[in-house]
Protein backbone atom coordinates (compact mmCIF):
# COMPACT_ATOMS: atom_id res chain seq x y z
CA UNK A 1 0.00 0.00 0.00
CA UNK A 2 1.38 3.39 -0.83
CA UNK A 3 0.49 6.78 0.46
CA UNK A 4 0.79 10.26 -0.93
CA UNK A 5 2.54 12.88 1.18
CA UNK A 6 1.30 16.45 1.31
CA UNK A 7 3.34 19.08 3.08
CA UNK A 8 1.43 22.33 3.31
CA UNK A 9 2.80 25.74 4.36
CA UNK A 10 5.12 24.18 6.87
CA UNK A 11 6.86 26.63 9.20
CA UNK A 12 9.37 25.72 11.84
CA UNK A 13 11.45 27.79 14.21
CA UNK A 14 13.53 26.06 16.86
CA UNK A 15 12.96 27.32 20.42
CA UNK A 16 15.32 30.19 21.09
CA UNK A 17 16.28 30.60 17.42
CA UNK A 18 15.82 34.01 15.81
CA UNK A 19 15.47 32.83 12.19
CA UNK A 20 13.04 30.14 11.09
CA UNK A 21 14.44 26.83 9.85
CA UNK A 22 11.52 26.21 7.47
CA UNK A 23 9.38 28.89 5.81
CA UNK A 24 6.07 28.02 4.23
CA UNK A 25 7.39 24.80 2.73
CA UNK A 26 4.83 23.21 0.42
CA UNK A 27 5.49 19.92 -1.27
CA UNK A 28 3.43 17.19 -2.87
CA UNK A 29 4.79 13.64 -3.20
CA UNK A 30 2.35 11.49 -5.19
CA UNK A 31 1.85 7.91 -4.01
CA UNK A 32 4.55 5.52 -5.13
CA UNK A 33 7.00 8.17 -6.36
CA UNK A 34 10.44 9.18 -5.17
CA UNK A 35 11.19 12.79 -4.27
CA UNK A 36 14.57 14.01 -3.17
CA UNK A 37 14.89 17.07 -0.97
CA UNK A 38 18.22 18.55 -1.96
CA UNK A 39 19.91 21.31 -0.02
CA UNK A 40 23.16 22.36 1.61
CA UNK A 41 23.68 21.68 5.30
CA UNK A 42 21.57 24.03 7.39
CA UNK A 43 18.90 24.35 4.70
CA UNK A 44 16.32 22.70 6.97
CA UNK A 45 15.98 19.45 5.03
CA UNK A 46 16.58 17.14 8.00
CA UNK A 47 14.13 19.16 10.09
CA UNK A 48 11.56 18.71 7.32
CA UNK A 49 12.07 14.94 7.40
CA UNK A 50 11.87 14.67 11.18
CA UNK A 51 8.58 16.60 11.09
CA UNK A 52 7.13 14.17 8.54
CA UNK A 53 8.38 11.29 10.71
CA UNK A 54 6.73 12.77 13.79
CA UNK A 55 9.98 13.26 15.69
CA UNK A 56 9.55 17.07 15.76
CA UNK A 57 6.44 19.23 15.88
CA UNK A 58 6.36 22.18 13.45
CA UNK A 59 5.41 25.68 14.55
CA UNK A 60 2.96 26.00 11.65
CA UNK A 61 1.49 24.26 8.63
CA UNK A 62 0.32 20.70 8.08
CA UNK A 63 1.56 17.28 7.04
CA UNK A 64 -0.97 14.92 5.46
CA UNK A 65 -0.40 11.26 4.69
CA UNK A 66 -3.00 9.74 2.37
CA UNK A 67 -5.04 12.92 2.81
CA UNK A 68 -5.21 12.84 6.61
CA UNK A 69 -3.36 15.30 8.83
CA UNK A 70 -0.87 13.36 10.97
CA UNK A 71 0.54 16.19 13.08
CA UNK A 72 -1.32 14.95 16.15
CA UNK A 73 -0.22 11.37 15.61
CA UNK A 74 2.93 10.02 17.27
CA UNK A 75 5.51 8.35 14.97
CA UNK A 76 4.35 4.81 15.71
CA UNK A 77 0.90 5.49 14.25
CA UNK A 78 2.13 7.07 11.02
CA UNK A 79 2.92 3.91 9.00
CA UNK A 80 6.50 4.89 8.18
CA UNK A 81 9.96 3.52 7.72
CA UNK A 82 12.91 5.79 8.44
CA UNK A 83 16.59 5.33 7.66
CA UNK A 84 19.12 7.80 9.04
CA UNK A 85 22.72 8.47 8.11
CA UNK A 86 23.82 6.04 10.83
CA UNK A 87 22.27 2.55 10.63
CA UNK A 88 21.34 2.51 14.36
CA UNK A 89 20.69 -1.23 14.37
CA UNK A 90 19.55 -2.52 17.76
CA UNK A 91 22.76 -3.91 19.27
CA UNK A 92 20.95 -6.42 21.50
CA UNK A 93 19.21 -8.10 18.56
CA UNK A 94 20.44 -10.20 15.65
CA UNK A 95 20.17 -9.02 12.04
CA UNK A 96 16.98 -11.06 11.54
CA UNK A 97 15.46 -9.74 14.78
CA UNK A 98 16.30 -6.19 13.69
CA UNK A 99 14.51 -6.66 10.37
CA UNK A 100 11.61 -8.37 12.16
CA UNK A 101 11.22 -5.59 14.75
CA UNK A 102 8.40 -3.62 13.14
CA UNK A 103 6.41 -6.77 12.35
CA UNK A 104 6.87 -8.12 15.89
CA UNK A 105 5.57 -4.85 17.34
CA UNK A 106 2.47 -5.27 15.18
CA UNK A 107 1.96 -8.82 16.42
CA UNK A 108 2.45 -10.47 13.03
CA UNK A 109 2.60 -14.26 13.31
CA UNK A 110 5.97 -15.96 13.46
CA UNK A 111 5.88 -17.79 10.14
CA UNK A 112 4.91 -14.67 8.22
CA UNK A 113 7.69 -12.71 9.92
CA UNK A 114 10.23 -15.39 9.00
CA UNK A 115 9.17 -15.37 5.36
CA UNK A 116 9.27 -11.59 5.13
CA UNK A 117 12.69 -11.35 6.83
CA UNK A 118 14.19 -13.96 4.50
CA UNK A 119 12.68 -12.19 1.49
CA UNK A 120 14.11 -8.81 2.53
CA UNK A 121 17.56 -10.14 3.43
CA UNK A 122 17.61 -11.61 -0.09
CA UNK A 123 16.52 -8.28 -1.53
CA UNK A 124 19.36 -6.40 0.18
CA UNK A 125 21.84 -9.12 -0.85
CA UNK A 126 22.47 -10.40 2.68
CA UNK A 127 20.98 -13.90 2.60
CA UNK A 128 22.18 -16.07 5.49
CA UNK A 129 23.22 -13.07 7.61
CA UNK A 130 20.15 -13.33 9.85
CA UNK A 131 21.86 -14.81 12.89
CA UNK A 132 24.68 -12.28 12.98
CA UNK A 133 25.00 -9.31 15.31
CA UNK A 134 25.16 -5.79 13.90
CA UNK A 135 28.71 -5.41 15.22
CA UNK A 136 29.88 -8.14 12.84
CA UNK A 137 28.74 -6.26 9.73
CA UNK A 138 30.48 -3.56 7.69
CA UNK A 139 28.99 -0.06 7.49
CA UNK A 140 27.42 -0.74 4.09
CA UNK A 141 25.93 -4.05 5.26
CA UNK A 142 24.51 -2.39 8.38
CA UNK A 143 22.86 0.29 6.26
CA UNK A 144 21.34 -2.41 4.03
CA UNK A 145 19.91 -4.10 7.12
CA UNK A 146 18.53 -0.72 8.23
CA UNK A 147 16.81 -0.38 4.84
CA UNK A 148 15.34 -3.88 5.13
CA UNK A 149 14.18 -3.10 8.69
CA UNK A 150 12.48 0.10 7.56
CA UNK A 151 10.65 -1.70 4.73
CA UNK A 152 9.73 -4.91 6.58
CA UNK A 153 6.25 -3.84 7.67
CA UNK A 154 5.47 -2.52 4.15
CA UNK A 155 5.11 1.10 5.25
CA UNK A 156 3.24 3.50 3.02
CA UNK A 157 6.05 6.03 3.34
CA UNK A 158 9.81 5.55 3.37
CA UNK A 159 11.87 8.46 4.73
CA UNK A 160 15.62 8.57 4.18
CA UNK A 161 17.92 11.12 5.81
CA UNK A 162 21.30 11.17 4.06
CA UNK A 163 21.32 7.38 4.19
CA UNK A 164 24.50 6.86 2.19
CA UNK A 165 26.58 9.87 3.19
CA UNK A 166 28.72 7.91 5.63
CA UNK A 167 29.63 5.26 3.02
CA UNK A 168 32.54 5.39 0.59
CA UNK A 169 31.79 6.56 -3.00
CA UNK A 170 31.94 3.12 -4.67
CA UNK A 171 29.47 1.70 -2.16
CA UNK A 172 27.21 4.74 -2.49
CA UNK A 173 26.65 3.98 -6.17
CA UNK A 174 25.69 0.37 -5.35
CA UNK A 175 23.31 1.54 -2.62
CA UNK A 176 21.55 3.96 -5.00
CA UNK A 177 20.98 1.13 -7.44
CA UNK A 178 19.73 -1.07 -4.58
CA UNK A 179 17.36 1.63 -3.37
CA UNK A 180 15.90 2.08 -6.86
CA UNK A 181 15.46 -1.70 -7.13
CA UNK A 182 13.84 -1.92 -3.67
CA UNK A 183 11.49 0.92 -4.55
CA UNK A 184 10.44 -0.89 -7.72
CA UNK A 185 9.64 -4.00 -5.64
CA UNK A 186 8.09 -2.41 -2.58
CA UNK A 187 6.60 0.77 -3.97
CA UNK A 188 6.65 2.82 -0.76
CA UNK A 189 6.36 6.55 -1.41
CA UNK A 190 9.89 7.74 -0.83
CA UNK A 191 11.08 11.08 0.55
CA UNK A 192 14.82 11.27 0.44
CA UNK A 193 16.96 14.01 1.98
CA UNK A 194 20.47 14.65 0.70
CA UNK A 195 23.08 17.33 0.10
CA UNK A 196 24.57 15.37 -2.83
CA UNK A 197 23.08 16.46 -6.17
CA UNK A 198 24.21 13.29 -7.97
CA UNK A 199 22.49 11.18 -5.33
CA UNK A 200 19.32 13.26 -5.65
CA UNK A 201 19.17 13.06 -9.44
CA UNK A 202 20.11 9.35 -9.49
CA UNK A 203 17.53 8.19 -7.01
CA UNK A 204 14.59 10.56 -7.38
CA UNK A 205 12.06 11.21 -10.10
CA UNK A 206 11.44 14.70 -8.71
CA UNK A 207 13.86 16.95 -6.87
CA UNK A 208 12.97 19.73 -4.45
CA UNK A 209 15.75 22.20 -3.84
CA UNK A 210 15.58 23.63 -0.35
CA UNK A 211 17.61 26.79 0.25
CA UNK A 212 17.46 28.75 3.48
CA UNK A 213 14.35 26.89 4.61
CA UNK A 214 12.35 27.67 1.46
CA UNK A 215 11.51 25.57 -1.55
CA UNK A 216 13.60 27.17 -4.27
CA UNK A 217 12.58 24.78 -7.04
CA UNK A 218 10.58 21.59 -7.49
CA UNK A 219 11.23 19.83 -10.80
CA UNK A 220 12.38 16.63 -12.49
CA UNK A 221 16.19 16.29 -12.31
CA UNK A 222 16.84 17.23 -15.96
CA UNK A 223 14.80 20.45 -15.71
CA UNK A 224 16.69 21.41 -12.60
CA UNK A 225 19.94 21.62 -14.53
CA UNK A 226 18.46 22.96 -17.74
CA UNK A 227 16.17 25.55 -16.19
CA UNK A 228 17.26 26.53 -12.68
CA UNK A 229 14.58 28.76 -11.21
CA UNK A 230 16.93 31.21 -9.52
CA UNK A 231 20.56 32.18 -9.52
CA UNK A 232 20.89 30.59 -6.07
CA UNK A 233 19.64 27.23 -7.37
CA UNK A 234 22.02 27.45 -10.32
CA UNK A 235 24.92 28.27 -7.98
CA UNK A 236 24.03 25.39 -5.64
CA UNK A 237 23.86 22.98 -8.58
CA UNK A 238 27.18 24.28 -9.95
CA UNK A 239 25.54 25.80 -13.06
CA UNK A 240 26.28 29.51 -12.62
CA UNK A 241 29.65 29.47 -14.40
CA UNK A 242 28.18 31.34 -17.37
CA UNK A 243 25.92 34.20 -16.27
CA UNK A 244 25.50 36.86 -18.94
CA UNK A 245 23.53 40.03 -18.17
CA UNK A 246 20.98 41.24 -20.70
CA UNK A 247 17.30 41.83 -21.35
CA UNK A 248 14.65 39.18 -21.89
CA UNK A 249 11.61 39.54 -24.09
CA UNK A 250 9.13 37.04 -25.53
CA UNK A 251 11.30 34.33 -27.18
CA UNK A 252 14.48 36.38 -27.10
CA UNK A 253 17.35 37.53 -24.92
CA UNK A 254 19.40 40.58 -25.92
CA UNK A 255 22.93 40.69 -24.60
CA UNK A 256 26.47 41.55 -25.79
CA UNK A 257 26.51 38.20 -27.65
CA UNK A 258 23.61 39.44 -29.78
CA UNK A 259 19.95 38.45 -29.90
CA UNK A 260 19.61 34.84 -28.71
CA UNK A 261 16.48 32.78 -29.23
CA UNK A 262 15.14 30.95 -26.22
CA UNK A 263 11.96 30.16 -24.37
CA UNK A 264 11.51 32.06 -21.13
CA UNK A 265 8.78 33.59 -19.03
CA UNK A 266 11.22 36.19 -17.75
CA UNK A 267 10.78 39.77 -18.90
CA UNK A 268 13.20 42.68 -18.61
CA UNK A 269 16.71 42.69 -17.14
CA UNK A 270 18.03 39.22 -16.32
CA UNK A 271 20.98 36.84 -16.30
CA UNK A 272 21.34 34.27 -19.04
CA UNK A 273 22.56 30.91 -17.68
CA UNK A 274 24.05 28.05 -19.67
CA UNK A 275 26.02 25.12 -18.29
CA UNK A 276 29.56 24.74 -19.68
CA UNK A 277 28.79 21.21 -20.91
CA UNK A 278 25.75 22.42 -22.90
CA UNK A 279 27.72 24.70 -25.24
CA UNK A 280 28.46 23.04 -28.58
CA UNK A 281 31.67 23.84 -30.46
CA UNK A 282 31.34 23.83 -34.26
CA UNK A 283 31.63 25.91 -37.36
CA UNK A 284 28.03 25.90 -38.49
CA UNK A 285 26.18 29.17 -38.95
CA UNK A 286 22.68 29.89 -37.79
CA UNK A 287 20.56 30.77 -34.83
CA UNK A 288 22.26 31.12 -31.46
CA UNK A 289 25.71 30.60 -32.95
CA UNK A 290 28.31 33.12 -31.85
CA UNK A 291 31.89 33.47 -33.02
CA UNK A 292 34.48 33.24 -30.26
CA UNK A 293 38.19 33.06 -29.62
CA UNK A 294 39.64 30.33 -27.42
CA UNK A 295 41.72 31.89 -24.66
CA UNK A 296 42.63 28.89 -22.49
CA UNK A 297 42.46 25.09 -22.68
CA UNK A 298 42.98 22.83 -19.66
CA UNK A 299 43.21 19.08 -20.22
CA UNK A 300 41.40 17.30 -17.36
CA UNK A 301 41.95 13.84 -18.82
CA UNK A 302 38.27 12.97 -19.09
CA UNK A 303 37.35 16.30 -20.71
CA UNK A 304 38.75 19.71 -21.68
CA UNK A 305 37.92 22.84 -19.71
CA UNK A 306 37.90 25.69 -22.20
CA UNK A 307 37.68 29.44 -21.84
CA UNK A 308 36.56 31.54 -24.80
CA UNK A 309 35.68 35.19 -25.34
CA UNK A 310 32.99 36.51 -27.59
CA UNK A 311 32.12 40.22 -27.89
CA UNK A 312 33.93 40.87 -24.61
CA UNK A 313 32.04 38.12 -22.77
CA UNK A 314 34.03 35.25 -21.23
CA UNK A 315 32.39 31.83 -21.64
CA UNK A 316 33.30 28.58 -19.84
CA UNK A 317 32.73 25.37 -21.74
CA UNK A 318 33.77 21.76 -21.68
CA UNK A 319 34.34 19.38 -24.58
CA UNK A 320 35.44 15.81 -25.08
CA UNK A 321 39.12 15.15 -24.37
CA UNK A 322 40.03 14.80 -28.06
CA UNK A 323 38.64 18.14 -29.32
CA UNK A 324 41.37 19.80 -31.50
CA UNK A 325 41.26 23.21 -29.83
CA UNK A 326 44.16 25.48 -28.96
CA UNK A 327 44.36 28.90 -27.34
CA UNK A 328 44.06 31.58 -30.03
CA UNK A 329 41.77 29.50 -32.30
CA UNK A 330 38.71 31.24 -33.69
CA UNK A 331 35.63 29.10 -33.54
CA UNK A 332 31.85 29.11 -33.43
CA UNK A 333 29.83 28.23 -30.37
CA UNK A 334 26.21 27.09 -30.49
CA UNK A 335 24.12 27.94 -27.45
CA UNK A 336 21.19 25.45 -27.71
CA UNK A 337 17.88 27.21 -26.86
CA UNK A 338 16.68 24.25 -24.75
CA UNK A 339 19.63 24.75 -22.40
CA UNK A 340 19.31 28.50 -21.96
CA UNK A 341 17.52 29.94 -18.99
CA UNK A 342 17.06 33.42 -17.62
CA UNK A 343 16.99 34.24 -13.94
CA UNK A 344 16.65 37.42 -11.90
CA UNK A 345 20.11 38.89 -11.24
Amino acid at each position, binding site marked *: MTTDITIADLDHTYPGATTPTLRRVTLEVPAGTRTAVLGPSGSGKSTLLSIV*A*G*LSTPTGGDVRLAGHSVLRQ*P*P*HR*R*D*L*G*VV*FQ*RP*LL*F*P*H*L*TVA*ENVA*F*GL*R*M*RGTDRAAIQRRVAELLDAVALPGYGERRSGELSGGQQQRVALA*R*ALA*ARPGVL*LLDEPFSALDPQLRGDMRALLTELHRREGSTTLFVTHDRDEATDVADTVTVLLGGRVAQHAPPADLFRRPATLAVARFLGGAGNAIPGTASAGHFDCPLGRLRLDTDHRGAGLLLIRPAAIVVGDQQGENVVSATITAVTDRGTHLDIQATSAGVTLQLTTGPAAPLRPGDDTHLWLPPAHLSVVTP
Partner: protein
Amino acid sequence: MNHRRTGLLLILPALATVVLLFGGGLGYGFAQSLGLAGFTDTPVGLAAYQRVTEGPAFTDGLLLSLWISTVATGLAVAIGVAAALALRRTAAGRRTATFLAQLGLPVPHLIGAVAIGLLLADSGLLARVARTVGVALPALVADPHAVAVIAEYVWKEAPFVLIVVLAALGGPVAEHERIAATLGARPRQVLRHVTLPLLAPSILAVAVLIFAFTLGAYEVPALLGRAYPQPLPVLAYQRFTAAELSGRAEGVAIALLIAVIAVAAALAYTGASRRAVGRVTGARR
Protein backbone atom coordinates in the same frame (compact mmCIF):
# COMPACT_ATOMS: atom_id res chain seq x y z
CA MET B 1 59.63 -10.77 26.04
CA ASN B 2 61.83 -8.00 27.36
CA HIS B 3 58.89 -5.67 26.97
CA ARG B 4 56.70 -7.87 29.08
CA ARG B 5 59.28 -8.04 31.83
CA THR B 6 59.53 -4.25 31.91
CA GLY B 7 55.75 -4.03 32.20
CA LEU B 8 55.73 -6.52 35.05
CA LEU B 9 58.42 -4.52 36.86
CA LEU B 10 56.41 -1.36 36.43
CA ILE B 11 53.24 -2.75 38.00
CA LEU B 12 55.15 -4.61 40.72
CA PRO B 13 54.82 -1.88 43.40
CA ALA B 14 51.05 -1.68 42.94
CA LEU B 15 50.73 -5.46 42.75
CA ALA B 16 52.81 -5.93 45.91
CA THR B 17 50.65 -3.46 47.83
CA VAL B 18 47.45 -5.19 46.81
CA VAL B 19 48.78 -8.68 47.48
CA LEU B 20 50.27 -7.73 50.85
CA LEU B 21 47.37 -5.68 52.17
CA PHE B 22 44.42 -7.58 50.75
CA GLY B 23 45.81 -11.06 50.18
CA GLY B 24 47.91 -10.89 53.33
CA GLY B 25 44.96 -9.91 55.51
CA LEU B 26 42.73 -12.50 53.87
CA GLY B 27 45.39 -15.19 54.21
CA TYR B 28 46.05 -14.34 57.86
CA GLY B 29 42.31 -14.39 58.56
CA PHE B 30 41.95 -17.73 56.80
CA ALA B 31 44.84 -19.10 58.90
CA GLN B 32 43.15 -17.81 62.06
CA SER B 33 39.86 -19.45 61.13
CA LEU B 34 41.71 -22.73 60.72
CA GLY B 35 43.31 -22.35 64.15
CA LEU B 36 46.75 -21.90 62.57
CA ALA B 37 47.45 -18.38 63.77
CA GLY B 38 46.49 -15.82 66.40
CA PHE B 39 45.75 -16.16 70.10
CA THR B 40 43.13 -18.89 70.12
CA ASP B 41 42.21 -22.23 71.62
CA THR B 42 40.64 -23.48 68.39
CA PRO B 43 42.14 -26.78 67.30
CA VAL B 44 43.77 -26.89 63.89
CA GLY B 45 41.23 -27.75 61.21
CA LEU B 46 37.69 -26.83 60.25
CA ALA B 47 36.40 -26.82 63.85
CA ALA B 48 35.55 -23.09 63.80
CA TYR B 49 33.52 -23.48 60.58
CA GLN B 50 31.72 -26.45 62.06
CA ARG B 51 30.83 -24.60 65.25
CA VAL B 52 29.53 -21.44 63.56
CA THR B 53 27.35 -23.28 61.03
CA GLU B 54 25.91 -25.77 63.52
CA GLY B 55 23.11 -23.84 65.23
CA PRO B 56 19.97 -22.25 63.81
CA ALA B 57 21.57 -18.81 64.38
CA PHE B 58 23.71 -19.18 61.27
CA THR B 59 20.94 -20.47 59.00
CA ASP B 60 18.47 -17.86 60.26
CA GLY B 61 21.10 -15.15 59.90
CA LEU B 62 21.95 -16.28 56.37
CA LEU B 63 18.29 -16.25 55.32
CA LEU B 64 17.81 -12.80 56.87
CA SER B 65 20.92 -11.47 55.11
CA LEU B 66 19.77 -12.80 51.75
CA TRP B 67 16.26 -11.39 52.33
CA ILE B 68 17.60 -7.92 53.18
CA SER B 69 20.02 -7.83 50.24
CA THR B 70 17.55 -9.18 47.68
CA VAL B 71 14.68 -6.90 48.65
CA ALA B 72 16.89 -3.82 49.10
CA THR B 73 18.58 -4.38 45.73
CA GLY B 74 15.30 -4.99 43.95
CA LEU B 75 13.63 -1.89 45.40
CA ALA B 76 16.65 0.38 44.91
CA VAL B 77 16.97 -0.71 41.26
CA ALA B 78 13.25 -0.37 40.55
CA ILE B 79 13.04 3.10 42.13
CA GLY B 80 16.32 4.31 40.66
CA VAL B 81 15.50 3.15 37.12
CA ALA B 82 11.95 4.52 37.25
CA ALA B 83 13.20 7.88 38.53
CA ALA B 84 15.90 8.06 35.85
CA LEU B 85 13.38 7.32 33.08
CA ALA B 86 10.95 9.88 34.46
CA LEU B 87 13.48 12.65 35.06
CA ARG B 88 15.64 12.38 31.94
CA ARG B 89 13.25 14.11 29.53
CA THR B 90 13.96 17.66 30.64
CA ALA B 91 17.09 19.54 31.63
CA ALA B 92 15.31 20.59 34.85
CA GLY B 93 14.59 16.91 35.58
CA ARG B 94 18.22 15.95 35.10
CA ARG B 95 19.34 18.80 37.39
CA THR B 96 16.84 17.67 40.04
CA ALA B 97 18.10 14.12 39.77
CA THR B 98 21.73 15.14 40.14
CA PHE B 99 20.88 17.37 43.08
CA LEU B 100 18.94 14.62 44.88
CA ALA B 101 21.71 12.14 44.32
CA GLN B 102 24.39 14.54 45.53
CA LEU B 103 22.32 15.21 48.62
CA GLY B 104 22.18 11.56 49.64
CA LEU B 105 25.39 9.97 48.37
CA PRO B 106 27.94 11.58 50.74
CA VAL B 107 25.91 10.82 53.88
CA PRO B 108 27.46 7.79 55.65
CA HIS B 109 25.25 4.75 56.17
CA LEU B 110 25.67 5.12 59.92
CA ILE B 111 24.10 8.59 59.87
CA GLY B 112 21.43 7.32 57.48
CA ALA B 113 20.64 4.48 59.88
CA VAL B 114 20.31 6.86 62.82
CA ALA B 115 18.01 9.13 60.77
CA ILE B 116 15.85 6.21 59.66
CA GLY B 117 15.74 5.02 63.27
CA LEU B 118 14.52 8.42 64.47
CA LEU B 119 11.87 8.39 61.77
CA LEU B 120 10.60 4.81 61.91
CA ALA B 121 11.17 3.62 65.48
CA ASP B 122 8.23 2.83 67.80
CA SER B 123 8.74 6.25 69.42
CA GLY B 124 9.81 7.83 66.11
CA LEU B 125 8.37 10.71 64.17
CA LEU B 126 6.20 8.60 61.88
CA ALA B 127 4.68 6.54 64.71
CA ARG B 128 3.85 9.70 66.68
CA VAL B 129 2.23 11.40 63.70
CA ALA B 130 0.27 8.23 62.96
CA ARG B 131 -0.89 7.98 66.55
CA THR B 132 -2.24 11.55 66.55
CA VAL B 133 -4.48 10.60 63.62
CA GLY B 134 -5.43 7.39 65.39
CA VAL B 135 -3.44 4.82 63.42
CA ALA B 136 -1.25 2.31 65.22
CA LEU B 137 1.73 1.38 63.03
CA PRO B 138 3.34 -2.06 63.20
CA ALA B 139 6.91 -2.21 64.42
CA LEU B 140 9.21 -1.03 61.64
CA VAL B 141 12.52 -0.99 63.51
CA ALA B 142 13.84 -4.29 64.88
CA ASP B 143 10.93 -6.03 63.18
CA PRO B 144 10.94 -9.55 61.66
CA HIS B 145 11.12 -8.23 58.08
CA ALA B 146 13.96 -5.75 58.70
CA VAL B 147 11.87 -2.95 57.19
CA ALA B 148 14.04 -0.17 58.62
CA VAL B 149 17.27 -1.81 57.41
CA ILE B 150 15.87 -2.23 53.91
CA ALA B 151 14.47 1.31 53.95
CA GLU B 152 17.90 2.72 54.82
CA TYR B 153 19.60 0.77 52.02
CA VAL B 154 16.98 1.79 49.47
CA TRP B 155 17.16 5.44 50.54
CA LYS B 156 20.92 5.38 50.10
CA GLU B 157 21.31 3.20 47.00
CA ALA B 158 18.39 4.28 44.79
CA PRO B 159 20.12 7.63 43.97
CA PHE B 160 23.23 5.63 43.11
CA VAL B 161 21.20 3.58 40.62
CA LEU B 162 19.66 6.81 39.31
CA ILE B 163 23.10 8.31 38.57
CA VAL B 164 24.34 5.15 36.83
CA VAL B 165 21.20 4.78 34.70
CA LEU B 166 21.15 8.48 33.74
CA ALA B 167 24.74 8.11 32.55
CA ALA B 168 23.80 5.03 30.52
CA LEU B 169 20.85 6.91 29.01
CA GLY B 170 23.27 9.55 27.73
CA GLY B 171 24.45 7.10 25.05
CA PRO B 172 22.65 6.35 21.79
CA VAL B 173 19.62 4.97 23.65
CA ALA B 174 17.39 7.90 22.65
CA GLU B 175 18.22 7.45 18.97
CA HIS B 176 17.35 3.76 19.12
CA GLU B 177 14.08 4.64 20.86
CA ARG B 178 13.20 7.06 18.05
CA ILE B 179 13.95 4.40 15.44
CA ALA B 180 11.75 1.94 17.33
CA ALA B 181 8.89 4.44 17.38
CA THR B 182 9.12 5.01 13.62
CA LEU B 183 9.00 1.23 13.18
CA GLY B 184 5.62 1.19 14.88
CA ALA B 185 6.53 0.41 18.51
CA ARG B 186 4.18 1.91 21.10
CA PRO B 187 5.84 3.70 24.06
CA ARG B 188 5.37 0.63 26.28
CA GLN B 189 6.91 -1.61 23.63
CA VAL B 190 9.83 0.79 23.19
CA LEU B 191 10.51 0.59 26.93
CA ARG B 192 10.33 -3.19 27.01
CA HIS B 193 12.06 -4.06 23.74
CA VAL B 194 14.60 -1.26 23.39
CA THR B 195 15.18 0.93 26.46
CA LEU B 196 15.43 -1.74 29.16
CA PRO B 197 17.52 -4.21 27.11
CA LEU B 198 19.96 -1.42 26.23
CA LEU B 199 20.16 -0.40 29.90
CA ALA B 200 20.38 -4.01 31.14
CA PRO B 201 24.18 -4.24 31.37
CA SER B 202 24.38 -1.07 33.50
CA ILE B 203 21.44 -2.10 35.68
CA LEU B 204 22.90 -5.55 36.18
CA ALA B 205 26.30 -4.19 37.17
CA VAL B 206 24.88 -1.73 39.70
CA ALA B 207 22.53 -4.39 41.11
CA VAL B 208 25.38 -6.83 41.75
CA LEU B 209 27.36 -4.05 43.47
CA ILE B 210 24.47 -3.17 45.77
CA PHE B 211 23.73 -6.82 46.51
CA ALA B 212 27.32 -7.61 47.47
CA PHE B 213 27.63 -4.45 49.55
CA THR B 214 24.40 -4.94 51.51
CA LEU B 215 25.26 -8.59 52.14
CA GLY B 216 28.52 -7.63 53.85
CA ALA B 217 27.59 -4.36 55.57
CA TYR B 218 27.46 -4.32 59.34
CA GLU B 219 26.44 -0.98 60.80
CA VAL B 220 22.87 -0.61 59.50
CA PRO B 221 21.49 -3.99 60.68
CA ALA B 222 23.50 -3.61 63.91
CA LEU B 223 21.64 -0.36 64.63
CA LEU B 224 18.20 -1.11 63.19
CA GLY B 225 17.99 -4.90 63.39
CA ARG B 226 16.67 -7.30 66.04
CA ALA B 227 18.64 -9.24 68.66
CA TYR B 228 17.65 -12.50 66.92
CA PRO B 229 18.06 -13.50 64.18
CA GLN B 230 21.01 -11.37 63.25
CA PRO B 231 22.32 -11.03 59.71
CA LEU B 232 25.71 -12.62 59.10
CA PRO B 233 27.91 -9.50 59.34
CA VAL B 234 26.50 -8.70 62.78
CA LEU B 235 26.96 -12.32 63.81
CA ALA B 236 30.58 -12.26 62.61
CA TYR B 237 31.37 -9.07 64.53
CA GLN B 238 29.83 -10.41 67.72
CA ARG B 239 31.74 -13.65 67.52
CA PHE B 240 34.94 -11.76 66.73
CA THR B 241 34.62 -9.49 69.76
CA ALA B 242 33.30 -12.21 72.10
CA ALA B 243 35.03 -12.93 75.40
CA GLU B 244 35.97 -16.56 74.57
CA LEU B 245 39.29 -17.31 72.93
CA SER B 246 37.58 -19.33 70.20
CA GLY B 247 35.51 -16.27 69.14
CA ARG B 248 38.14 -14.79 66.86
CA ALA B 249 38.45 -17.90 64.72
CA GLU B 250 34.66 -18.17 64.51
CA GLY B 251 34.18 -14.50 63.61
CA VAL B 252 36.69 -14.72 60.81
CA ALA B 253 35.13 -17.99 59.64
CA ILE B 254 31.72 -16.29 59.30
CA ALA B 255 33.27 -13.30 57.51
CA LEU B 256 34.95 -15.59 54.99
CA LEU B 257 31.69 -17.50 54.49
CA ILE B 258 29.95 -14.18 53.74
CA ALA B 259 32.56 -13.47 51.08
CA VAL B 260 32.02 -16.89 49.48
CA ILE B 261 28.22 -16.47 49.59
CA ALA B 262 28.46 -12.95 48.14
CA VAL B 263 30.54 -14.13 45.20
CA ALA B 264 28.31 -17.16 44.60
CA ALA B 265 25.14 -15.07 44.94
CA ALA B 266 26.53 -12.41 42.60
CA LEU B 267 27.34 -15.05 39.98
CA ALA B 268 23.93 -16.71 40.34
CA TYR B 269 22.17 -13.34 40.27
CA THR B 270 24.01 -12.26 37.15
CA GLY B 271 23.09 -15.49 35.38
CA ALA B 272 19.47 -15.33 36.50
CA SER B 273 19.07 -11.68 35.54
CA ARG B 274 20.54 -12.28 32.10
CA ARG B 275 18.06 -15.08 31.54
CA ALA B 276 15.25 -12.86 32.80
CA VAL B 277 16.28 -10.06 30.46
CA GLY B 278 16.37 -12.58 27.65
CA ARG B 279 12.86 -13.79 28.46
CA VAL B 280 11.48 -10.27 28.67
CA THR B 281 12.99 -9.06 25.43
CA GLY B 282 13.15 -12.27 23.42
CA ALA B 283 16.84 -11.57 22.89
CA ARG B 284 19.44 -14.27 23.15
CA ARG B 285 22.52 -13.15 25.03
